[in-house]
């Protein structure tokens, strides 16, 4: 057998030390197939080798957590025997190289993670970051990613109900495409990936295996350079039609009791699914690649083990159930093949054309995979409260509403079917989306949040803020926040400054999740988001899920009546550091990120949620990007009802009052009598608050001492930016 050269080791993304470790574990030189398997299993993407040590510090437990991190997705109890299963995952690197297929297969992959556990996907979200609007690639990427997400999700018939989008130059060379899927299952019918027992048939279901996506996981674990476009062949091609059939076929199979374990073939395909199932089940797996359904002729064992062809699953059945399972897959016209058997050897053995091409201890791929305590170097967080000029606030409002980061995302979400399944009770554009649990009056509130500019200024406070904002968004619609999934997008962990951003980010999430009793039940890390040595802003995206007992008692941001009193809940100090106002109006990205008081977050959220649950308030908006005036404008535009407001309850000047991004704040609107009662309750609870104005008959926003702006004019700015931007011809 040809011996492995140091060049081959390097091409497989393995360091010299790692290769030495492989030699030690194997007791001999690996075959090329084995080297390929190590390469993907030890990649950052699959092994979490730089983050695993730190991820252990995250809180993952609560009485309602059925399954925490480590499985395909997290599972929480939502009462009445129902469970919500969810996870968020990145498809950043492929989406930059081939935006349509990259984003589409990202959606497909996260859906499989959820339905492989026995859940029917009921909602999708996505958190997207693009480079600056003027960058020559940005339009093409936005167009392709949005079309890809829609193309896949729409065909699946799962509503895409929301998400978030930012533009910033730090993403010029590395966009982020994070997709979240939420599914619904019965709590006693959750399927796991542990391939327990020896002698059970290992079956392959779904699409045929082709040569696409080979080494995708390794690509996703490296920086980009100018030649990265040449990696296009490593991007997978999605087929949502097959995935829809796979979903229905799997759910039909899961309704029987034929399955021991099941796992989707995601990154590193057949390799990681078999290794992970064997590892979790404490068993061995023997595969015969001759039986793998193949799309192309003459595929080698190496290619089959590393292919990332989509829409495939691996399952371990109870012995004798093959025919029953096969009949289901035949009905759905999907490939089904027995390709192996579980063993008691704890080894992964791969045979092809009569030869054993790999024979390795499974532990070498999991427990013995490297874990690095990478050195990190703390940087002082950005500090200070930057100066600002006194400018007319309504002019600034119009500018901000018409800016890339703050304008309406309608252009995007109208390309997603967000009402299919007929349970979307709160659509995109609010604080959180709400989907009803089919056939009940319960609802799940879903949101994705992070403010990368805060994270850049202060990775710890910024990560806390991401969790706090998810908490607020869920509370603001009237749901009780239950758990999160995290998608940690960072640069190169081998740079001590970046590693510190990762560590501080994880610790910020940990602190917030602990304080709020909001455990992390699943997640994904995407590192090496760097191009030519430039890293992205730290972007730990948080996907939150909450439960609403009765969707008839839900708040939305839209003003509903004229004459409602506007009440600001929370302390307004006028924090302008790292604010949208500072960036869009003063052209500065500086100052401290807003501090997050988790006790206040908890107290204020519980107060607001209780009001909604009792049916006392139906109009709530949390304050985040852009501060109070942007929130008021969104409420007015959403309800097509104007309002008037002024500085109240503080000595803060107009600009920081209306645009400061102090945390733990909400605006509620309620009729006068109810508002009076709420005010008394706020006093009793010792929550800082102020009556700041009311909704009025005119279709305007009037600010005391500043004049007024017509809603039509604000709407034109708010709705106009995206379509106008995308209408400009761009390279494809």
């Amino acid at each position, binding site marked *: 057998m040809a011996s492995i050269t140091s060049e081959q080791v390097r091409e497989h993304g393995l360091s010299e030390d790692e290769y030495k470790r492989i030699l030690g574990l194997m007791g001999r030189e690996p075959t090329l197939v084995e080297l390929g398997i190590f390469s993907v299993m030890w990649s950052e993407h699959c092994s979490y080798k730089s983050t695993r040590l730190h991820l252990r510090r995250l809180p993952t437990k609560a009485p309602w957590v059925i399954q925490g991190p480590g499985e395909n997705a997290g599972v929480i109890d939502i009462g009445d025997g129902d469970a919500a299963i969810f996870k968020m995952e990145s498809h950043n690197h492929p989406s930059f190289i081939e935006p349509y297929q990259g984003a589409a297969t990202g959606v497909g992959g996260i859906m499989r993670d959820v339905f492989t556990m026995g859940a029917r996907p009921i909602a999708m979200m996505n958190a997207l970051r693009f480079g600056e609007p003027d960058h020559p690639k940005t339009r093409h990427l936005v167009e392709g990613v949005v*079309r890809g997400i*829609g*193309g896949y999700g*729409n*065909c*699946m*018939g799962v509503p895409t109900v929301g998400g978030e989008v930012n533009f910033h130059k730090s993403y010029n060379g590395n966009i982020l495409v994070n997709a979240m899927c939420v599914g619904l299952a019965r709590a006693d019918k959750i399927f796991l990936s542990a391939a327990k027992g020896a002698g059970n048939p290992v079956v392959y279901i779904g699409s045929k295996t082709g040569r696409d996506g080979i080494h995708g996981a390794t690509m996703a674990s490296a920086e980009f350079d100018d030649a990265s476009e040449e990696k296009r062949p490593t991007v997978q091609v999605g*087929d*949502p*039609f*097959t995935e*829809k*059939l796979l979903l229905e076929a799997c759910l039909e199979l899961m309704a029987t009791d034929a399955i021991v374990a099941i796992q989707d073939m995601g990154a590193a395909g057949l390799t990681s699914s078999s290794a992970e199932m064997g590892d979790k089940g404490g068993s061995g797996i023997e595969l015969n690649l001759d039986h793998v359904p193949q799309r192309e002729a003459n595929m080698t064992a190496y290619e089959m083990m590393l292919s990332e062809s989509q829409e495939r699953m691996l399952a371990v059945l109870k012995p004798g159930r093959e025919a029953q399972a096969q009949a289901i897959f035949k009905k*759905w*016209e999907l490939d089904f093949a027995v390709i192996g058997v579980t063993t008691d050897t704890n080894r992964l053995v791969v045979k092809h054309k009569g030869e054993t091409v790999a024979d390795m201890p499974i532990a070498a791929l999991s427990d013995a995979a490297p874990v690095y305590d990478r050195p990190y170097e703390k940087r002082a967080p950005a500090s200070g409260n930057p100066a600002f000029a006194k400018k007319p606030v309504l002019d600034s409002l119009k500018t901000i509403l018409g800016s890339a980061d703050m304008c309406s995302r309608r252009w995007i*979400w*109208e*390309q*997603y*079917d*967000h*009402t*299919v*399944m*007929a*349970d*979307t*009770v709160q*659509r995109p554009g609010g604080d959180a989306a709400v989907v*009803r649990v089919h056939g009940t009056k319960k609802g799940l509130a879903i949101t994705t949040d992070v403010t990368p500019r805060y994270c850049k200024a202060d990775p710890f406070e910024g990560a806390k803020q991401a969790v706090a904002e998810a908490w607020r968004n869920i509370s603001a619609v009237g749901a009780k926040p239950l758990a999160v999934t995290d998608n940690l997008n960072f640069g190169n962990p081998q740079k001590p400054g970046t590693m510190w951003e990762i560590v501080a980010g994880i610790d910020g999430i940990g602190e917030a999740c602990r304080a709020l009793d909001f455990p992390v039940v699943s997640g994904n890390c995407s590192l090496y988001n760097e191009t030519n040595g430039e890293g992205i802003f730290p972007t730990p995206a948080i996907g939150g899920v909450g439960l609403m007992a009765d*969707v*008839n008692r839900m708040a939305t941001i839209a003003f509903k009546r004229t004459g409602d009193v506007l009440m600001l809940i929370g302390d307004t100090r006028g924090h302008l550091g790292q604010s949208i106002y500072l960036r869009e109006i003063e052209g500065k990205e500086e100052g401290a990120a807003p501090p997050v008081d988790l006790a206040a977050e908890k107290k204020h959220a519980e107060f607001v949620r209780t009001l909604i649950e009792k049916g006392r308030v139906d109009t709530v908006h949390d304050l985040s990007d852009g501060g109070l005036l942007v929130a008021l404008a969104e409420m007015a535009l959403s309800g097509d009802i104007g309002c008037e407001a002024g500085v109240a309850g503080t000595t803060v000047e107009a600009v920081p009052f209306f645009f400061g991004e102090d945390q733990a704040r909400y605006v509620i609107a309620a009729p006068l009598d109810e508002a009076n009662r709420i005010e008394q309750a706020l006093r009793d609870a010792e929550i800082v608050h102020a009556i700041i104005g009311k909704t009025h008959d005119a279709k305007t926003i009037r600010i005391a001492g500043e004049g007024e702006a017509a809603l039509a004019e604000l709407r034109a700015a708010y709705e106009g930016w995206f379509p106008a931007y995308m209408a400009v011809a761009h390279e494809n």
Partner: protein
Amino acid sequence: MKSAVIVFPASNCDRDAATALERLTGNKTHMVWHRESELPEVDLVVLPGGFSYGDYLRCGAMASQSAVMRAVKAHADKGGAVLGICNGFQVLTETHMLPGALMRNADLKFTCRPVGLEVEETQSAFTRKYEKGQRVYFPVAHGEGNYIADDETLNRLEGENRVVFRYAAGDNPNGSARDIAGILNEKRNVLGLMPHPERVVDPLLGGVDGKGLFQSLIETLS
């Protein structure tokens, strides 16, 4: 009223249609797999929205060749009611049970939003509970809903009062000829429309304007 919903591979509004029908009729809906060559005894057959056969070749083209569509044609030939929604409308044109074709939306984008419709014809089993000229809002969710036919066909459809729903002025989401959103066959027992009435039968989901369509059918067929 007894009803059946046809399930093609990658139909995805089949459950929504069944939920709406069951909610309004109180009867269980039959779900009929595309390989079946016979239908149960029903008054109404619904061809639901979705991406039958992945929309490969052309939307609805493969479904039009399926075994169950022969049974659906036979049902219609006997005077049974057939409702094709979104992908179902595409299947009906591909089967030539309705004239014309549905092309890519004029802006080439999938679009999902509520659209205003004028109920133009109330002399039908599908629309008798609406007022003539009534404005209703149904959501659309499609990438290929741009209705096209030759002028002679369009004139004939209009002359025979077979254009049942038209997009309200300025609210045509896909470039359809003469703002056509939904049409009847000659015998007036087959309706195809791109917007989704089954998504607006529950006040929590943004309105109940779609109820009239199902209630018309219940009144006529029960």
